[in-house]
């Protein structure tokens, strides 16, 4: 008994146990059948962190926040319609999520003397820019807007996103915490790929609670609306577009982890093959979301990593591995991608329709963008207020496409005003300015950088802010990236 306990303790002290721990809890979310069981899973996670892994309250809360980041299931939610009470207009849902609760807890914990020392991180330019952005957004939101209830929920969302950036920086500024990020990404991509593959094979949602969020919860799943009707994989993010953005973030980071994996050890070599298969499957799942904007992301990921490997002369696999084995692996990769090819061919046929259809995706986006610029010229300094765009434009845009501008930066420009948006753009620019010397040593950091770039690209085509978990993930990973850059320079 003592020997077993000692073995268990030594395993728990091993960092690799976190991979299994995260995986176990991600997969346990599939067991949630309602809100109560959903909350129970996260509560168990928190208690395991505290009692089994002996993390303090702050770290247990942070890890629970980490696990809860991609999920938008709520304990209580409220529907907002613009125009007011008109279900034919634009509507969105705001709710109390686990990540809001965890973020609030961390915000309260960080002011305690015990944890205040964690705030001693080097304050760089981009942190100041983010704070200025927050200040401008706050002033604009609080003092100059109508429909304050709509503005309030948008403001809470913005506040949480900004806090996620800082809390990621605070946590990962501590020594020896990078492994948490690595195992988190690996477990998350395994879980996301699993859920996506199940949906792709079934050609419908697998019928789990986490697949249905208050905002996006079509029980039959989403299908394409132009061209031939095809089912679109949406994972547990619940909408294919956001799932595509989400996978576009995970894949390059995971590829960085793949490149980092040391191949000197033979057992690890086979792990690299497993990683490669996982990358192929995750790309398949990404393609199965049938989000055309993610094709650009895939091209970006491939080209960036191609030049990265070439420039740094990285050896992915040693030559001594038999050619026969390599061929088997590549054959497997091709076979894994075959099911998606026919699906993609049909989707490609819908591309001409994008341009010719007057009520299609492109035309509607251009109409919204045009309206966005018009509104911006009316309220350039403070914007029309968060979530107020659809109030201003309901009667004027196509009645079939009442929505915010399908460009995250245009949303900020229209709803927060030009000064706040410019500051945010500068913040992004300074946060993402590449550091080639760090990238050379750390493929994972390069992968993170590429992931953040893919989000910026996705943000040009989709409203990735108020109702999308990937903005939270973007800010969180940006916080991690910022602190890694600082610590390496």
């Amino acid at each position: 008994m003592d020997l077993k306990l000692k073995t268990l303790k030594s395993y728990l002290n091993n960092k690799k146990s976190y991979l299994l721990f995260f995986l176990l809890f991600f997969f346990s979310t599939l067991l949630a059948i309602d809100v109560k069981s959903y909350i129970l899973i996260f509560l168990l996670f928190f208690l395991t962190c505290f009692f089994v892994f002996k993390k303090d309250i702050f770290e247990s809360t942070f890890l629970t926040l980490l696990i809860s980041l991609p999920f938008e299931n709520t304990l209580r939610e409220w529907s907002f319609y613009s125009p007011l009470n008109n279900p034919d207009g634009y509507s969105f849902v705001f709710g109390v999520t686990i990540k809001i609760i965890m973020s609030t807890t961390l915000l309260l914990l960080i002011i305690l003397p015990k944890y205040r020392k964690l705030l001693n991180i080097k304050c760089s330019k981009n942190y100041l820019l983010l704070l200025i952005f927050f200040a401008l957004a706050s002033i604009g939101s609080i003092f100059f807007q109508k429909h304050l209830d709509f503005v309030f929920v948008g403001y809470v969302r913005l506040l949480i996103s900004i806090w996620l950036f800082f809390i990621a920086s605070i946590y990962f500024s501590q020594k020896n915490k990078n492994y948490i990020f690595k195992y988190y990404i690996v477990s998350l991509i395994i879980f996301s790929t699993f859920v996506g593959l199940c949906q792709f094979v079934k050609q419908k949602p697998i019928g789990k609670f986490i697949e249905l969020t208050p905002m996006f919860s079509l029980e039959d799943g989403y299908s394409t609306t132009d061209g031939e009707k095809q089912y679109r994989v949406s994972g547990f993010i619940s909408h294919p577009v956001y799932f595509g953005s989400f996978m576009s973030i995970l894949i390059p980071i995971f590829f960085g982890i793949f490149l980092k994996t040391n191949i000197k050890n033979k057992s690890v070599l086979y792990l690299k093959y497993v990683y490669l298969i996982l990358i192929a499957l995750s790309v398949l799942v990404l393609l199965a979301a049938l989000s055309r904007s993610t094709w650009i992301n895939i091209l970006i990921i491939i080209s960036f990593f191609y030049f990265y490997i070439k420039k740094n002369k990285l050896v992915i696999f040693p030559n001594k591995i038999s050619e026969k084995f390599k061929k088997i692996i590549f054959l497997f990769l091709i076979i894994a991608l075959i099911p998606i090819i026919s699906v993609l061919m049909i989707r490609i046929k819908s591309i001409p329709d994008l341009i010719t259809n007057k009520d299609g995706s492109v035309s509607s986006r251009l109409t919204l963008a045009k309206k966005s610029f018009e509104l911006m010229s009316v309220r350039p300094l403070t914007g029309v207020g968060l979530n107020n765009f659809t109030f201003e434009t309901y009667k004027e845009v196509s009645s079939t496409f009442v929505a915010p501008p399908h460009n995250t930066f245009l949303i900020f420009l229209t709803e927060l005003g030009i000064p706040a948006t410019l500051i945010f753009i500068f913040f992004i620019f300074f946060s993402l300015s590449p550091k080639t010397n760090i990238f050379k040593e750390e493929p994972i950091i390069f992968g993170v950088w590429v992931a953040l770039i893919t989000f910026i690209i996705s943000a040009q085509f989709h409203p990735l802010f108020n109702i999308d978990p990937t903005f939270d993930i973007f800010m969180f990973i940006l916080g991690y990236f910022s602190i890694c850059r600082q610590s390496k320079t």
Partner: protein
Amino acid sequence: MTILGRLKTISYAEIFVILVVVFLTVFMVKFFGRKKEFKTIRVEVIRNNWTENYDPYGYRAPFWLSDKVKVGQTEKSKSGKIIATLTDLENYERGSEEAELYLTVKIETLLNKRTGVYTFKDKPINLGSSIELNLDNISIVGQIVDNNVPEGGYPAKYLMVTAKGRNFESWLYTKVVPGLKVYNRATNEVVAEVVDVKLENSTLQQIKYSSSYLQAIVGKDKDLLVYVKVKVYQMDGRWYFMGHQNIKIAGSLYLYTNELNLYGFEIEDIKELP
């Protein structure tokens, strides 16, 4: 380290923070508590102006709409979940190209525990509230005439109603014969059937004025007595026939059969049938 040992590592400040967060969460959930409940309501389809033909009673559903409404049709939310199911339907003719529709619909409502108000698609479900339904892509606008339909439906029974119609055109008397039926068009159920018909000399006297004297003309007009077996249901203590016709002595009876419409009958007698 034991569980107790781990708990001892938590400071009072941390306990306070956790309690505050738990309290705030529970407060938000309970204070803004909403409970999903299915309710069965009765809706009278009225008020939407399909044809722009004004009717002082309110607009009725045209046949091209009423004939498409069927029991079992559903409305789904944006999430694909069924939020309304048509469980019963009464569809009566009204003598013109319109139908009187009464829907019994089971809807998914949200009860706001603070205010006690049930809402459907964010609109309150009060008695008299208007409601918009989209049952299998059929848009229906109506008024809630009962927001708490009893399980199993309303109590129903059959009555033998004796009703008298006066001063009809003589050609009509030959057309009103036993066997005329009134149907619920939704279910083809017979809700009224003329069992017997009698023609009587009218009890009304017509006074004819001539230049020199007043003369009563007796026996000119006929009264048509019909014996009709009707199905009535009880709502709030009153017995109704064909939706809104309240069956009482001296009240009116209108019969819309497939062959002819009978207006303006006066109820003389009501007997309950076993």
